[in-house]
């Protein structure tokens, strides 16, 4: 029917402008600036190799690739093994505590991997409570027994799996709920029992969603710096650090980052592809509650263990340990320095969140008001940062910013004899910019979802009722968008608070945040001292968990909610 797709999407402009305007120029410009770090990294892949690079290639590159691959395969298996069964149990079965598990299974999301890693190290190493207890019970001494070494590649796989499985859980749970009505009822009428229904119908249908969750978890795995560094496992991220700061060769670091980006690209393609396919796996627009399988006896006990274990291991035990440590070390948090840390973290996160949401608003409105190929492509490129490890972004930000600083400084010195120093690269500007690159996707996704709730016909309706464009924004868009904007702000805020590698690289001299301080103290084996900063991060991390669990409980099919 619509002969005019352009104007349908065209928001509150009644006349289409043919000439380029602020939107059609500004949106690609913003996207280009945000894409700069990635482009810089890619450019370095083609720059002739330095001696350091040749050295790397002959010695450690192999290790980086192998370790990163093993880590990804291991974590991939781990998150699937935890994420899928728990998702299926809470969405298809009925057992006491199901509603609690439904949201509690998200809690490990609040636990940054590097924090859980050193918490378990503290608990499981020779002097830790577990081994001490063991020795007390058995009377063994040092060297009398074998105990698994947590600071190892398998250890890192377990740590990362414990905090990253919620990605798979979240997406496959949503997929299982969406399928509920049609196909599963059909499979039951065709005589498929719970198991056949699961592996012949539910699982294949949920596969695109599961793969999306898996690729998100793997992106995080690849991006992890804190865990592997603390466990002493050479991977890409630690290699980039070492090359830059140890060997002093930013170019080689960027080349390493470039190779790492190919891994990332594979994951992005995987994610995009499976998201596209997930659309076709929507089997029905209508939902009705499917009777859940009621679990009893052995099944019930099994389900409880399967659901409780990840929560206990991934959240309860490490938080309890952190709390105990924090209470033991009041001198760490009952002092002004801790307040400075909190202030630094909070203000930095707040600035980055406001900026990321503002940019997301500009991009989302640009796409709505001037939908065109370049604008849409630009928005997509700008949203790519979530897949790119903070280390890579940091390197990609540092190189051009340092060049700009040096250029300005050199010019000012020549012209006026004044040294301007590092205007961009040595200040918070670089840090905030890299946060925007990394977390824009988080805000963009939320803002776009909010904007999608405002149908173009609502703009038209308001105008035909006598409302000029400016008031459409304040009377229709703002009230409807308010919730989404707040959510976007909070999500970016917490992500920035947790971020470690980019902050480590780009922070100005002597500027510390909670994440950096926790990591530094832990690296110095002052685990108990680091607990208060870590606990603050975990507490902040619970906020998005609550937000997400509220959203999913509201969007639950069959729940009477606005359609």
């Amino acid at each position, binding site marked *: *029917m*619509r*002969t*005019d797709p*352009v*104007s349908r999407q065209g928001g509150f402009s*009644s*006349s*289409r402008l043919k000439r380029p305007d602020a939107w059609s120029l500004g949106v690609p410009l913003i996207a280009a600036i945000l894409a700069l770090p990635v482009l810089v990294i890619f450019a370095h892949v083609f720059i002739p190799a330095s001696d350091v690079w040749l050295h790397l290639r002959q010695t450690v590159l192999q290790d980086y690739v192998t370790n990163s691959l093993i880590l990804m395969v291991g974590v991939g298996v781990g998150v699937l093994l935890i994420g899928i069964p728990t998702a299926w149990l809470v969405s298809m079965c009925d057992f006491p505590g199901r509603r609690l598990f439904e949201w509690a299974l998200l809690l490990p999301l609040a636990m940054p991997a590097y924090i859980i890693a050193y918490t378990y190290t503290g608990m499981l190493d020779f002097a830790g409570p577990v081994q001490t207890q063991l020795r007390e019970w058995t009377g063994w001494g040092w060297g009398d027994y074998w105990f698994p070494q947590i600071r190892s590649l398998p250890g890192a796989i377990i740590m990362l799996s414990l905090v990253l499985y919620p990605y798979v859980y979240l997406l496959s749970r949503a997929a299982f709920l969406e399928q509920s009505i049609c196909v599963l009822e059909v499979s039951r009428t065709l005589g498929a029992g719970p198991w056949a229904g699961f592996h012949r119908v539910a699982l294949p249908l949920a596969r695109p969603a599961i793969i999306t969750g898996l690729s998100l978890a793997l992106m995080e795995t690849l991006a992890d710096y804190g865990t592997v560094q603390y466990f002493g496992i050479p991977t890409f991220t630690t290699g980039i650090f070492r090359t830059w700061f140890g060997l002093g060769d930013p170019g080689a670091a960027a080349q390493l980052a470039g190779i790492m980006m190919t891994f990332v690209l594979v994951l992005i393609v995987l994610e995009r592809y499976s998201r596209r396919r997930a659309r076709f796996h929507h089997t029905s627009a209508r939902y009705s509650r499917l009777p859940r399988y009621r679990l009893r006896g052995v099944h019930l006990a099994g389900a409880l263990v399967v659901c409780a274990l990840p929560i206990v291991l991934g959240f309860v035990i490490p938080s309890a340990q952190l709390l105990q440590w924090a209470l033991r070390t009041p001198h760490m948090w009952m002092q002004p320095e801790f307040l400075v840390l909190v202030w630094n973290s909070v203000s930095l996160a707040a600035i980055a969140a406001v900026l990321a949401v503002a940019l997301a608003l500009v991009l989302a409105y640009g796409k709505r008001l001037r939908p065109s190929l370049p604008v849409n492509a630009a928005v997509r490129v700008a949203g790519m940062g979530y897949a790119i490890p903070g280390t890579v972004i940091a390197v990609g930000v540092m190189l051009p910013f340092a060049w700009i600083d040096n250029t300005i400084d050199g010019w000012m010195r020549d012209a006026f004899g004044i040294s301007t120093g590092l205007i961009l690269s040595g200040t918070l500007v670089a840090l905030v910019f890299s946060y925007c690159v990394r977390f824009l996707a988080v805000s963009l996704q939320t803002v776009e979802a909010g904007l999608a*709730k405002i*149908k173009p*016909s*609502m703009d*038209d*309706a*308001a*105008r*035909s*009722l*006598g*409302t*000029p464009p400016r008031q459409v924004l304040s*009377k*229709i868009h703002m*009230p*409807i968008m308010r919730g989404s904007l707040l959510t976007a702000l909070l999500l970016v805020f917490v992500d920035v608070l947790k971020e470690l590698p980019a902050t480590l690289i780009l922070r100005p001299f002597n500027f510390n945040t909670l994440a950096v301080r926790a990591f530094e103290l832990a690296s110095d084996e002052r685990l108990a001292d680091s607990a208060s900063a870590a606990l603050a991060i975990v507490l902040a991390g619970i906020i998005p968990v609550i937000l997400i669990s509220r959203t999913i409980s509201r969007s639950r099919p069959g729940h009477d*909610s*606005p*359609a």
Partner: protein
Amino acid sequence: MTRLLEIDHVSVGYDGTTVVHDVSLALNTGVIGCLLGPSGCGKTTLLRTIAGFEPASAGRVLLDGQVVSQAGWTLPPERRQVGMVFQDFALFPHLTVAENIAFGIRGQSSRARRERVTELLRLIGLPDYGPAYPHALSGGQQQRIAVARAMAPRPRLLLLDEPFSNMDVELREGLAREVRAILKQEDITAMLVTHDQNEAFAFADRIAVINAGRVLQWDTAYNLYHKPIARFVADFIGQGRMLTGTVRNKHEVETELGTITGRIPETCQPGDPVDVLVRPDDIQPDDSSPIFGEVMEKAFRGANFLYTLRLGSGDTVLCLAPSHANYALGERIPLRLGFNHLVIFPRQTGPAMVS
């Protein structure tokens, strides 16, 4: 009756394509008009031009004699006092039903606004729903609220963009009649866009049949059905088949089913080959007739049968027979032509043509 809306040689297009071609029509105060046509014919674009969302590339749109659109200038929608009801209703989800309806009422005391809202809620039969939020209501209720919201500021003209197409088919005609009653009660001038002729018949006083961006006929439903002036209109409205014939003189056409008498367009000369529109109700089974048709298809409709019959020449016609006249497939039944209106078009293949 005064002329409220005048569309004067309006064309609409963008990016080098013209969607609406040189359309002229006028709507008098209190009349409900309809733009009827197949998907993509440009009817919604024309409606959005009247509302001020699309600029006219040529011609003028006048409201109450005042130009609101012409090439290069468009009075913005918010200053036209033209209400619009949207296909997806576009109710504001963050406002209650009462707030939605009150949204467009301006420059009145809050008491007057409240009274107007109460009045409209009563008019649409939902007096108690003021405090409810739109998502809690059924589609039909949302739809009536969308109508009330558009009517609330007492617009000069009310536009409705396929407002019933989201409804269940069984509900559509009933709702169309209901909304029509509401508009007539308030003496509102309105223009509806739809692709559903039954909806158009139930809702509108005058209907413009549009194809490929052109208005082919602007007429009453009765005339569109019985006196189509374009082949497309004849095809699009109602059912029917074309029967080949030859003009004999100024009043008669010779066909396979006999000689038919009626008014023949001046462009047709004796001896010209023509097509004669035969509606299903023009043909009845008649045992005394010497002309037969073979039953190709039959569809039971409860009160009657719709037969597709093949004549000797191979042409097919439709026949609406009472439901006790039950013939078998392949059976040959005697036919009689009973014409009230003779509709003929010069013999021509290709696109619709105005005679």
